[in-house]
């Protein structure tokens, strides 16, 4: 037994479908570890996704339902978890193909059945120790590189400072040149790969740039710091600092093959060359001048212009850029000038904040990073990811939204906490498009349609929104869904899946529907009101342009008498009853509305029978009596076939026919001859349908 420790226990996840196996392994591992259990691969992946590197070790069975051990390893590989979470395979499969496959997928160890308490415990401790050692080693190597780079950088800083000190400069010049060199190079590699510069080259060139003026150490003080204009001889002497600096580096007894020294040589020797070949000392032109020297030359000129010197005042940033662009400081590579123009604003900001300590640290940090982390998912990245996940979960639970993440490969859907409880779904659903429960909740065709719609988006326009109905506790509710397709950055973008959220809008939508209903219906009878009936008829006529429509306007005769003699409550009852009668006498697709008062409207849609007979049938079924009140109805009818007449003509003519009918005595119906003009003038030659006495 080990001494009890006050340290937080390490967490071990056991993924095995047999409860007995899990219990046995947990018992053998002992109480020194926190044990988590998962009864299939899917649950195991869920735990890893939720806890990340809080899990120190996974014991993984092979044969399991839902998702087997190899599939778990495949997912761990795809997400890069296998690099940070060691896995020991436990199985009674001892075939070498299984074991090889497991090692191939990155497991650290393999324990075969029967389990031996000593072996299980030893393997677990070994793997954890090994892993801790490996992490510590990575840290130590990183520290050493850091120390070495810091040493280099410090020496360079001291050396260049000596030069500047002698030069009467502030010491900021080398920092400015270095910062600006880095800025320009970073911009260059974004625009072109013609110079084949890597990010670590940039760090190197920026560091080496500090040495560009070391040759000045050999220039006599009275020339170097002469306040006035230099004579030709003095200027020739001054120019020599380039060659002298380069020779100093070349003459180094050792190290002259170091990349830093080689780049420093180029910069020191050629940072006064010009693109047109009119610089010194060698008169190189164009890209014969190494790009490192070209960039440092530009940075050197800019900082010289914007700094105060014994022989000149400082120019403003804008003035300095202008002078460089106008060629007042010699010719530069036009591409480089283009880059300068594009980063000009940043240059000003960067140089203001450039200071020795943070620059050095930043550079070293970068070098260490690139040396130690050749591949993407470092543990730091994983930590950040864990943190982001925590935030995401928190906001998801706060917002009463169901958030999800869908990946195509593996086909996996992750649903946020609240969504799980709301929809009774699992956190992780494999192959969601074929998942029974999900298809039941959302409707299979809705899911397929959404996936197809997301697939059909473009990287520029990846968002789709729609209202969908989802089954919650067996009843449909309305949700608003917003989803964003995830496209890769490849030249030909690849669809990877989607993220999104769905928000319950059921109440809002219900209220909206209710308002819509209220706005389009007569509150007393529940029939459509006149404006919405008009709209509905026009829609039907547009949908069936070749159809026959029979349009009736009808009055409930003597309604006023009913109101006067039996009270308004009876009047209301009567209207409601009559409305029900109207609805019952027509088909679902027909339109019935209360135009106002005791006036109603019926439109028979797309009729295939003789209108005469239809109207007669409707008429017979709506007349009669209600609680001792005789239901006498007068109707005006207008017909149209094949879109001959529009709504307004139908209404006008039916109305005129009704008016005509009432003039000749109430009860019965009259067909319009469709001769009523817009001005209301009528030429009625009414075909009388029936007299009240004719009814049965």
């Amino acid at each position, binding site marked *: 037994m080990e001494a009890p420790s006050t340290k937080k226990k390490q967490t071990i996840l056991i993924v095995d479908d*047999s*409860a007995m196996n899990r219990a046995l392994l947990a018992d053998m591992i002992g109480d020194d570890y926190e044990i988590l259990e998962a009864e299939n691969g899917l649950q195991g992946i869920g735990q890893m996704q939720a806890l990340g590197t809080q899990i120190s070790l996974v014991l993984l069975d092979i044969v399991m*339902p839902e998702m087997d051990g190899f599939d778990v390893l495949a997912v761990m590989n795809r997400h890069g978890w296998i690099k940070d979470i060691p896995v020991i395979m436990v199985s009674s499969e001892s075939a070498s193909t299984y074991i090889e496959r497991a090692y191939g997928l990155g497991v650290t160890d393999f324990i075969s059945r*029967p389990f031996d308490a*000593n072996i299980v415990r030893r393997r677990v401790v070994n793997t954890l120790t090994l892993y801790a050692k490996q992490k510590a080693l990575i840290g130590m190597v990183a520290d050493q590189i850091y120390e070495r780079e810091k040493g280099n950088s410090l020496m360079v800083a001291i050396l260049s400072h000596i030069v500047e000190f002698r030069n009467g400069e502030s010491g900021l010049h080398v920092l400015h040149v270095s910062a600006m060199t880095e800025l320009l190079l970073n911009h260059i590699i974004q625009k072109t790969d013609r110079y084949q510069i890597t990010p670590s080259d940039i760090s190197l060139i920026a560091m080496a740039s500090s040495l560009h003026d070391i040759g000045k150490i050999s220039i006599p003080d009275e020339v170097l710091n002469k306040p006035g204009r230099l004579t030709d001889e003095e200027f020739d002497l001054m120019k020599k600092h380039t060659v002298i600096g380069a020779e100093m580096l070349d003459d180094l007894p050792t190290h002259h093959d170091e990349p830093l020294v080689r780049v420093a040589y180029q910069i020191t020797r050629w940072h006064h060359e010009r693109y047109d070949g009119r610089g010194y000392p060698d008169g190189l032109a164009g890209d014969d001048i190494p790009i490192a020297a070209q960039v440092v030359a530009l940075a050197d000129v800019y900082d010289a212009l914007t700094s105060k010197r014994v022989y000149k005042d400082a120019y403003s940033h804008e003035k300095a850029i202008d002078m460089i662009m106008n060629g007042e400081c010699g010719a530069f590579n036009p591409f480089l000038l283009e880059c300068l123009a594009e980063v000009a604003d940043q240059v000003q900001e960067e140089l203001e904040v450039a200071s020795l300590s943070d620059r050095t640290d930043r550079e070293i940090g970068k070098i260490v990073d690139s040396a130690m982390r050749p591949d993407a998912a470092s543990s730091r990245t994983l930590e950040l990811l864990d943190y982001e996940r925590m935030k995401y979960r928190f906001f998801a639970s706060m917002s009463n939204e169901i958030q999800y993440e869908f990946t195509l490969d593996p086909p996996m859907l992750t649903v946020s906490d609240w969504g799980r409880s709301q929809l009774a779904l699992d956190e992780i659903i494999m192959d969601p498009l074929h998942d029974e429960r999900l298809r039941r909740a959302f409707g299979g065709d809705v899911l397929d349609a959404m996936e197809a719609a997301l697939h059909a988006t473009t990287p520029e326009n990846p968002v789709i929104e729609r209202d969908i109905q989802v089954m919650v506790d067996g009843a449909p509710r309305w949700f608003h869904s917003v989803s964003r397709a995830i496209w890769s950055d490849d030249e030909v973008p690849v669809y990877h899946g989607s993220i999104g959220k769905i928000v319950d809008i059921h109440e809002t939508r219900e209220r909206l529907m209710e308002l819509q209903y209220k706005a389009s219906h007569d509150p007393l009878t529940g029939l459509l009101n006149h404006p919405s009936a008009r709209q509905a008829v026009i829609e039907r006529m547009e949908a069936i342009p070749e159809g026959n429509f029979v349009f009736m306007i009808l009055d409930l005769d003597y309604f006023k008498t009913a109101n006067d003699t039996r009270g308004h409550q009876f009047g209301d009852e009567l209207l409601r009853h009559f409305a029900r009668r109207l609805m019952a006498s027509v088909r679902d697709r027909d339109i019935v509305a209360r135009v106002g008062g005791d006036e109603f409207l019926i439109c028979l849609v797309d009729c295939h029978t003789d209108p005469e007979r239809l109207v007669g049938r409707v008429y017979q079924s709506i007349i009669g009596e209600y609680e001792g009140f005789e239901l006498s109805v007068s109707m005006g009818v207008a017909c149209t076939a094949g879109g001959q007449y529009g709504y307004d003509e139908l209404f006008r003519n039916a109305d005129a026919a009704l008016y005509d009918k009432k003039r000749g005595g109430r009860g019965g119906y009259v067909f319009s001859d469709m001769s009523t003009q817009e001005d209301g003038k009528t030429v009625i030659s009414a075909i009388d349908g029936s007299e009240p006495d004719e009814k049965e």
Partner: protein
Amino acid sequence: MSLESCYAAMGGDLEGVRGRLLTDERIRKFAAIFLEDKSFENLGAALEEGNMAEAFRAAHTMKGISRDLGFTPLFEASSALSDALRPDDAGVPSALENVPGLLRATEEAYQRTVEAVSAL
């Protein structure tokens, strides 16, 4: 009943299991848990339903457990059964024709083991 008589009754390997599980206490604890394990019932139910993948997993679990506990005859029988049920590349049991015989052998071994362990 002592562990010795129990293992003798079923033909198990007590010496081996003592070497692996280290304490008699642990052996007794997991032998008791063995009685609660549902793999045998799952095996029967899965075969009845014709769910061969599930049947394979159940036999496979029995094989693992009986091996851990040194229940040698049950291990050997369930191991042979699990091999016969193991899905081939097409997902079909590799030796279906042997399953009935092997199932009977497994059942016998299981009954013998359960009797012995229940007497502990």
